[in-house]
Every structure is written in structure tokens, then in C-alpha cells.
């Protein structure tokens, strides 16, 4: 397993957000994480990226425990993510957002720039080219010079994905990446995610759009009240009685 | 032992004065998440306008003080309209509000100086009855007692007002989330204006009592209490009404007992600000804060 959850637990003020969650994500696959609102999906993603430390349990990335590391250390191991509520840098342009995301790629060193060495200019060109490539992959190269706060909702999601890709991650955590997107955009995202996996990236995604998840994911984990209900291939999961119950329950709530 | 009790009274009293100043300060912060650095200027103008009403206009204190309090409240409305309302929609309204309130403080203070002059003046001697009680060697004045009582009463009344009245509940709703409050049909703009009015009226009243007790009113009288007021509302927890008064008393006691225990009064302010620094580091929400760290 590329990413392995071992009995991860986390509570907030006595409420168990996650209790003994265990499952594995295989390398170079798209793994779906589904469950009703408040089932602990986002908390789990925060645990992976280090924003929330687990109370108990272990988290292994490529066999290496990472649950005690701070977020930037985890990112340095090749974990990138997007947020459910989109955390862009609104006062920067799209290009600038992505350049800011290149932090771990090296480049833009201070001293060559101070003395205007030729390497500084080369690095600058490289950095802009890389950023442009990320924007292009996410399909928003046309908006490179637009301020992030001026983008449409779908474009913002794409920009956040582009910024995450600037890290050249090994695993990409996507929290509701297609929420609010139109059909055509969703199709484009599907293509993008597939091509990323082909190039060797692992994807763990949270999504409520069931057809999309079923189409795209090789394996799916279902969370309910902070517990793993099941993990398996889409068709297995879809027929799992507890899942049906959970989702029917959720629907009746709405 | 009698020294100890006298110091206890001293600390209680000066702490109540800090609390009175801080209570309006913290109210605005609680609702808007904005530090209103012009609060000290309103405090000053409250005191000075009461002086003008009693001396130049010749009113009795019972007429002058409510009028001056009202005037301070109106100044608060002006302050809000001019310095804060236009900035509400800005992303950095915390920072820009800080600066615009500083600008208004400068304008207010220069107006005070232009009208009243820079000198320290006082209310006419004997205008306000003040009795002195001796308990052995412990001395207490009626004015001190009144100020402590007013501070504690305000704490209770304001807290009850926020808890139980319609407007109070609306104020709390706005403090919690403006958008939600708007959805609930609350006229946010009106509530915020009212909060400024109440906060500034309280600030002005504090200025009157301060000037009355210390026999000193001057355009720069807000400077020394401004920083202490900040310390007090952090100590008590930003936005907490009981915290402002209790934080004030805690701060007053810490000042007094630094002098009493170390015998070195030059350590007084250093101790106070070191305590403040430590509280910010160890428990940023303050002694009675709401437990969550705001990202102001």
C-alpha cells in the first residue's frame, strides 16, 4: 500500500470524529472517500496533510510513518492537497498562485538574484514555464494574468489543483474537486485525473457526485460516523448493505 | 495588616477605573473584531465636555453628566460613520480600522486641545459631594465606593442586557456572525451603530468619573490609560464584559501589590506588561475569553 491508515482515531472535545479508521490506498490509483456530511472525511484528509494530528493510530506513506510530522514536512514527502472551501491567494494572479506553490521545487534562490547572475534568469524562466504548464494542464492557461479573486467557481477549483500540481506531488488529496463545476468541466477534470495517474501520481479524493466517483475510482472507502464502513471496488461498495442504508439515511435527512 | 487592606482597596479601586474604561473598548472589539484606538480620545472628550457643561454652561453635575455621556455616545456614532463604516467591506478592515481610529483620535485630541487648551484642569472643588470614612487606619471615600459600585453594576447590567434583551441578543448575533445575523433579519448596520453609541457613552462616562476622582482633566489624559486598557481587555478576554471589569481589577491589584511586595514602584509597569506578554503566549483567549483564538 502506498498510503496506509492504521486505526487512526481523533476526537474533538469528546466527539469522536475518527475512530480506528483503517484502510490502504494503492499506488497510482484513484481512491475515493465517500460518506455523509460530518462522517470525518475532511478530518481524515487533515490528518494526512498534517494539519490535524491523530490521537491514536499510525499513518504510513510508502511504509514510512508520517502522522507525527508537521505539514510542511509531509508536503516535502510529496503530499499535495486542495481544500473543500478553496484556499487560494485571492490578491495574486493565477500565475502567481502557482509560482507560490513551487516552494519545494527549489529555484528562485536569493543570492543569484541579488547579484543578477545568469542562473537567476534561467531559474526565473524555468519557474514561469513550469507554472504555465501546470495552468495548462488544469485548463486555465488563458487566465494566467487574472486575479484569483476574479475567477469563476470552477476556475478557482482548477487553479487550486494547478497550484497543488506545482509541487510535483506523489499523492494528491482532493477535497470535493468538482463541486460546483459544469458538466464539460467535470469531463475535463476526469481526463486530467486519469492522465495524472498514468504519469505516476496517486489520488485520494472526497466527492459527493456518485456517478463521477463510480466512474473514476479504482477503490472506494466509505466513512460513517468516523468509522470505516467498507473499502472495496466501486461495484462492491455500491451493493454493501450498510452503505445503502447510510446513504438512504442521509438522503432522507435532506 | 492594615497596609495590606488599604492596598487591597487601592487596587480594587484603580482596577475598577481601568475596568470602566475597558468595558466600552471590549464591547466594540467583541462585536466588530476591531480595536478602536479612538476610545481613549472619547474618554477624554467625555470628561472635558462634562467640565464645560458644569463650568461654562453652569449646569449642575446631575444635568451635566448625563448630557456629557450622551454627547460621548453621539461622538461614537460620528466616529463609526466616518472612520469605520466606510471600511467595513474591506478585507483588511482590522488593520485599516486601527489606523483610521488613530487618525480620528488625533483629530479629537487636537480639537480638545484647541478648545480647552493643553493644561490640566479640574471640576470645581466641592461640586460633587465626597465623604471620607476612616476604619482604623484604613481610609475609604464615598467617591471610590461609588466608582467601584458603578463598575460592578455596569458589568452586571451590560451582561444581562446582552443576554436577555432583544437588542442585546442581536448584538451577540452580530458578534457571532454578521451574515447569519443578516439572514435572521437583524439590521446589522443599526446594531453596530448602537454598539458604538453604547461603547462610547460608557467611555465618556468613565472619563467623567476619572476626572472627578483624580481632579485632573487634560487633552492627553487618555494616553496613559489607553495602553493599560488594552492590557486589561486582553487579560479579561477580548470581547468579554465581565472580563473587562474583572481583568481591570486584576490589573489594578497586580500594580498595587508589585509596589507593596517588592517595594520597588519602578517595576510596576514592567511587571504589568510582562504578565500581559505571558498571558498572550500561554492563554491568548484571556482569563475569561471565549476559549477560541480569534484570527483577527
Amino acid at each position, binding site marked *: 500500500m502506498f498510503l496506509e491508515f492504521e486505526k487512526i482515531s481523533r476526537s474533538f472535545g469528546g466527539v469522536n470524529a475518527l475512530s480506528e479508521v483503517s484502510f490502504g490506498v494503492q499506488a497510482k490509483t484513484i481512491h475515493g472517500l465517500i460518506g455523509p456530511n460530518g462522517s470525518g472525511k475532511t478530518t481524515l484528509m487533515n490528518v494526512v*496533510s498534517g494539519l490535524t494530528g491523530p490521537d491514536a493510530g499510525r499513518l504510513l506513506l510508502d511504509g514510512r510513518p508520517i502522522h507525527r510530522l508537521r505539514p510542511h514536512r509531509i508536503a516535502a514527502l510529496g503530499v*499535495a492537497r486542495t481544500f473543500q472551501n478553496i*484556499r487560494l491567494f485571492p490578491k495574486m494572479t493565477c500565475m502567481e498562485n502557482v*509560482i507560490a506553490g513551487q516552494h519545494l521545487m527549489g529555484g528562485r534562490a536569493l543570492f543569484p538574484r541579488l547579484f543578477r547572475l545568469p542562473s537567476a534568469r534561467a531559474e526565473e524562466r524555468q519557474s514561469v514555464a513550469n507554472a504555465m504548464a501546470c495552468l495548462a494542464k488544469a485548463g486555465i492557461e488563458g487566465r494566467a494574468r487574472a486575479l484569483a479573486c476574479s475567477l469563476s467557481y470552477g476556475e478557482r477549483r482548477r487553479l487550486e489543483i494547478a497550484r497543488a500540481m506545482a509541487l510535483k506531488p506523489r499523492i494528491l488529496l482532493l477535497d470535493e474537486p468538482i463541486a460546483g463545476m459544469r458538466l464539460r468541466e467535470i469531463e475535463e477534470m476526469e481526463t486530467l485525473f486519469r492522465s495524472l495517474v498514468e504519469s505516476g501520481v496517486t489520488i485520494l479524493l472526497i466527492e459527493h457526485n456518485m456517478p463521477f466517483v463510480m466512474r473514476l475510482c479504482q477503490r472506494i472507502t466509505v466513512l460513517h460516523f468516523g468509522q470505516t464502513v467498507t473499502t472495496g471496488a466501486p461495484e462492491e461498495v455500491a451493493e454493501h448493505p450498510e452503505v445503502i442504508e447510510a446513504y438512504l439515511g442521509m438522503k432522507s435527512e435532506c | 495588616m492594615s497596609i495590606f487592606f488599604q492596598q487591597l482597596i487601592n487596587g480594587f479601586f484603580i482596577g475598577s477605573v481601568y475596568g470602566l474604561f475597558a468595558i466600552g473598548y471590549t464591547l466594540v472589539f467583541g462585536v466588530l473584531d476591531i480595536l478602536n484606538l479612538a476610545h481613549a480620545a472619547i474618554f477624554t472628550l467625555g470628561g472635558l465636555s462634562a467640565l464645560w457643561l458644569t463650568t461654562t454652561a453652569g449646569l449642575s453635575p446631575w444635568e451635566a453628566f448625563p448630557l456629557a455621556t450622551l454627547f460621548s455616545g453621539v461622538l461614537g456614532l460620528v466616529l463609526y460613520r466616518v472612520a469605520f463604516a466606510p471600511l467595513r467591506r*474591506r478585507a483588511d478592515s*482590522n488593520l485599516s480600522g486601527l489606523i483610521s481610529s488613530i487618525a480620528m483620535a488625533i483629530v479629537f485630541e*487636537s480639537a480638545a486641545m*484647541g478648545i480647552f487648551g493643553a493644561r490640566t484642569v479640574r471640576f470645581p472643588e466641592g461640586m460633587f459631594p465626597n465623604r471620607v470614612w476612616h476604619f482604623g487606619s484604613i481610609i475609604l471615600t464615598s467617591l471610590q465606593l461609588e466608582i467601584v459600585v458603578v463598575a460592578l453594576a455596569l458589568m452586571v447590567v451590560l451582561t444581562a442586557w446582552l443576554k436577555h434583551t432583544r437588542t442585546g441578543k442581536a448584538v451577540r448575533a452580530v458578534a457571532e456572525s454578521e451574515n447569519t445575523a443578516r439572514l435572521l433579519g437583524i439590521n446589522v448596520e443599526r446594531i453596530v451603530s448602537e454598539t458604538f453609541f453604547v461603547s462610547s457613552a460608557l467611555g465618556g462616562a468613565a472619563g467623567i468619573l476619572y476626572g472627578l476622582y483624580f481632579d485632573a482633566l487634560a487633552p492627553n489624559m487618555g494616553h496613559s490609560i489607553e495602553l493599560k486598557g488594552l492590557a486589561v481587555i486582553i487579560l479579561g478576554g477580548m470581547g468579554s464584559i465581565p472580563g473587562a471589569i474583572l481583568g481591570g481589577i486584576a490589573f489594578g491589584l497586580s500594580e498595587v501589590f508589585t509596589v507593596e511586595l517588592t517595594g520597588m514602584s519602578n517595576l510596576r509597569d514592567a511587571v504589568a506588561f510582562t504578565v500581559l506578554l505571558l498571558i498572550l503566549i500561554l492563554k491568548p483567549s484571556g482569563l475569561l475569553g471565549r476559549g477560541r483564538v480569534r484570527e483577527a
Partner: protein
Amino acid sequence: MSEFFAVYGSLINFVGINALLALSLYVPLSAGQLSLGNAAFAAIGAYGSAILTMRFNVPFPLAIAAGACLSAAVAMAIGTPVLRIRGIFLAMATLAFGEVVRIVAVNLAITGGAEGLIGIPNKTTALIIYGTVAATAYFLAVLGGSRIGWSFASVREDETAAMVMGINTTRYKNGSFVLGAFIAGIAGALYAHLNFIITPGEFGFSAEVQLLIYNIVGGTRSVLGPILGAFIITVLPEVLRGVGVTAGPLRMGVNGVILLLVILYLPNGLSSLFGQKR
């Protein structure tokens, strides 16, 4: 022309020193850290360097460097605990730190207490001041485009997002704080050696607020903003004097009104009038 320099020479020097002080606050601001302790760091640089030149005959350039390093070292020591605090609370914490520094300077014998440190050799020249301003501005402009500058900007815009992008936010916040303190230390040291005397009162609350005003009035979009802000605010009293607004309270009031107008109508500071950078 020589009369102009005779009348305004000192003013020109003060503009430079204040520009340097403004830049010292610009650094933590560019990383989203609202510090109100930079005047205290300037005090540390000023007292540190002045004591070195006066008591130990340390050469001037060395004393400046030592003062700045002392200031940076203090920033490093208090940075880690203090920078866990955010926003307005950080401002309050740094303000409290500044008050403690001022009170210490009032009470120590080596700093001359309230009467100040008197007889500091006059070594600072306009050339030194403006050389330092230019070097600092260039350095900060380049820093802004480097990986460090981008990290500062990321932390300022969204600390959580910055973390998951692999930025060690604690380190960069501390870094901005220490670099700011270092520049403030230089400014303080230059000021001390310009003025013959330094007193604790000059580095108090109003000085802290003044630095913030420079940045807000000028704007913090680029290094030019704080410099412009320092220039305008420092020159304003003299300009008002020049146009005949001399009466004390009136001039103070006009000062306040101008500050208010800038903050209300130029949200990105005066430098936003001169074209858009980035």
C-alpha cells in the same frame, strides 16, 4: 541651493532614517505579521551601538552591525513563542514587549535612564543613511521575487495553504520578524549616531504606531510604499509649516485628517497612485 540644504538637511536625514524604520516593519508585514515592536528593536540597536561607540570605542560600522545583530538576536529569542499569536493579538504582544524594553531602558544605569544616553558621537551622514536605504530597498525588492519572498507572501495570504504547500511557516514567520528587527536595529543605530542623545521616550507606543502609519499611508504592495509613506509623513509637518498652518493643535488636526483621507480613499496607500506593481 545651499540654503535649502541648511534648512532641510536634517529633515532629509530623518526621512531616510524613517524610511529605513518603515522598511523594517514592511518585512514582517509582508509575511502577514503585524508587529508593533519594531521601535523597540530600533531602541535595542540604538542603545547597543551607542554604548559600544561611547564606552568601548568600537569603530562606527562595527557598532552598527553589532547593534543590528543584538536586535536580531532578541527577536530570535522572543520570536518563537510570540509568533504563535496571531493578528491583533500579536500586535498587542509585541507592543507589550516594546513597553518592557522602554521600561528597562528607563531603569538601567548603562542606558542613562530617563535622561537618556547623552554624547553619542555624530558619525551618521546623509550618504550613509541613503546608501543603507538604497541597499535595503534593493535587497528587499529582490527578496520579494525570491523563494523567500514568495513564501512570505504565501504565509500572509493563507497560512494553512502555505503549510500544505511545504512552507515551514514558523521558520518564515520567525525569519521575517528577525530580518525586520535587524533592519530596525540598523535604523536605530544610525539614528543614535545622528542625534547626540537618545531617550527611552522616543521609542514608545507613539513611535510604534508611527511606523505602522508609514506603511499604511505608503502602501505595502512594494518596497516603494513604506519609503513613500515615511517621506510624506515626515515632510508633512514641514510642508504645513511652509503653507502657514503653524498653530499647534490645528496642525495636529490637519495631520489627522490627511491620515484619515488616505486610509479611506486610498486603500492600497499612496504608492497605488503611481501605477500597479504586481
